[in-house]
């Protein structure tokens, strides 16, 4: 068995990796189904993000506490049952708090169970780390997931309804792109965000390469070679 990095200290990276470097949606491409399905408005996106974060935190905390008790052979089944328990809690909670949100999200609240991100975190992080590390990391991942949902939700609501959180932004003359609220819009907007991040990453890499290749020539030549490409 691999050495357990049980005693690793909590670094800022434990928290931040979920938000940027290992963002579950934009980088790892996990948990796509709710990302696309419920992001037709900011409010839905926020509710879904918070619900997922809650399930992620609670289930990973429990997995982390029980990591020495759960036998290796049946761990996946055990994780799924733990996750399903907390999803049932969230399902009844949202039903009690706001019927409106419950109806808008529909079966996707219950489908949090099969969000690969939560199971993935349980397997990759919570089962090998202390409770404190796990909590910090899960919180980061949850926030990263929520931010990603909000990124999609805001663009789709802005273009599809000309509003943000229900308040009209563009005024009367704006002709809403209904397509953005419909399924294809979800695919297109997510693709656009991925393209943006890929472009950012590539230009950053090029700048780094240019800086490494010609450190004595200063930034000027490096900048020129970027544009020449």
């Amino acid at each position, binding site marked *: 068995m691999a050495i357990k990095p049980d005693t690793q200290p909590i670094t800022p990276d434990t928290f931040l990796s979920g938000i940027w470097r290992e963002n579950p949606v934009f980088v790892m491409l996990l948990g*796509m189904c709710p990302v696309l399905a419920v992001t037709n408005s900011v409010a839905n996106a926020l509710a879904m993000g918070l619900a997922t974060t809650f399930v992620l935190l609670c289930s990973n905390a429990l997995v982390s506490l029980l990591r020495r008790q759960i036998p290796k052979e049946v761990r996946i089944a055990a994780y799924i049952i733990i996750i399903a328990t907390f999803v049932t809690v969230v399902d*009844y909670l949202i039903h009690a708090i706001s019927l409106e949100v419950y109806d808008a999200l529909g079966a996707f609240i219950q489908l949090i169970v099969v969000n690969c991100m939560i199971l993935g975190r349980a397997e990759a992080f919570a089962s090998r780390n202390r409770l404190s590390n796990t909590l910090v990391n899960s919180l980061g991942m949850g926030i990263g997931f929520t931010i990603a949902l909000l990124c999609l939700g805001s663009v789709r609501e802005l273009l599809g309804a000309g509003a943000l959180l229900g308040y009209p932004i563009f005024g009367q003359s704006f002709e809403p792109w209904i397509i953005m609220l419909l399924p294809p819009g979800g695919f297109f907007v997510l*693709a656009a965000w991925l393209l943006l991040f890929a472009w950012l990453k590539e230009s950053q890499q090029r700048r780094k390469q240019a800086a490494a290749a010609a450190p004595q020539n200063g930034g000027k030549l490096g900048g020129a070679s970027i544009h020449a490409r």
Partner: protein
Amino acid sequence: MHADSLGFIFLNAAIINNFVLALFLGICPLLGVSGKLNTAFSMGLATSLVMLISSVSAWLINEILTHFELEFLRLIAYIAVIASAVQLVEMSLKKFSPALYRALGIFLPLITTNCAILGVALFQTNYEYSFVQSLFYSLGAGTGFIIAIVLMAGLREKLDLADVPSIARGAAMSLMLAGILSLAFMGFAGLGG
């Protein structure tokens, strides 16, 4: 067609409200296993099989749970059934077709976390379908999944030969393809009337 007729339920699940392209269920395998046409088709078949088994079991379980008023256990019971169904399919594939077993790799156990399968079970419960209706619903959903993943794989095989900017390669391109497919499937929306 009447909304409760079996033919309509099948068509609705397969094409009008296609599970992948209209309801966004099962996006992970759509992006992950659609690289090759053969693998995509086998993946579709395996998923449909699991869908059928779990749909039938979910209907039975729901009857039992409703009888004892234990609805809050529904989600946990469904997921346990699906996990066992996947295990079953995995074992039989390993025995009867080792080549296919290797080709599907990690995505076979991951069928458990395929939203489409739990989705079928949950939706048929929400719509209060009878046993036969559930059967047709899950068959339709399986067919729809196969259609979507095979179309996607065909497009991606062609696209491998095309000259695509480097930043668009991979997930972004697949998502755009899925968006265009989804746009095409919206054309079927009027079919139900």
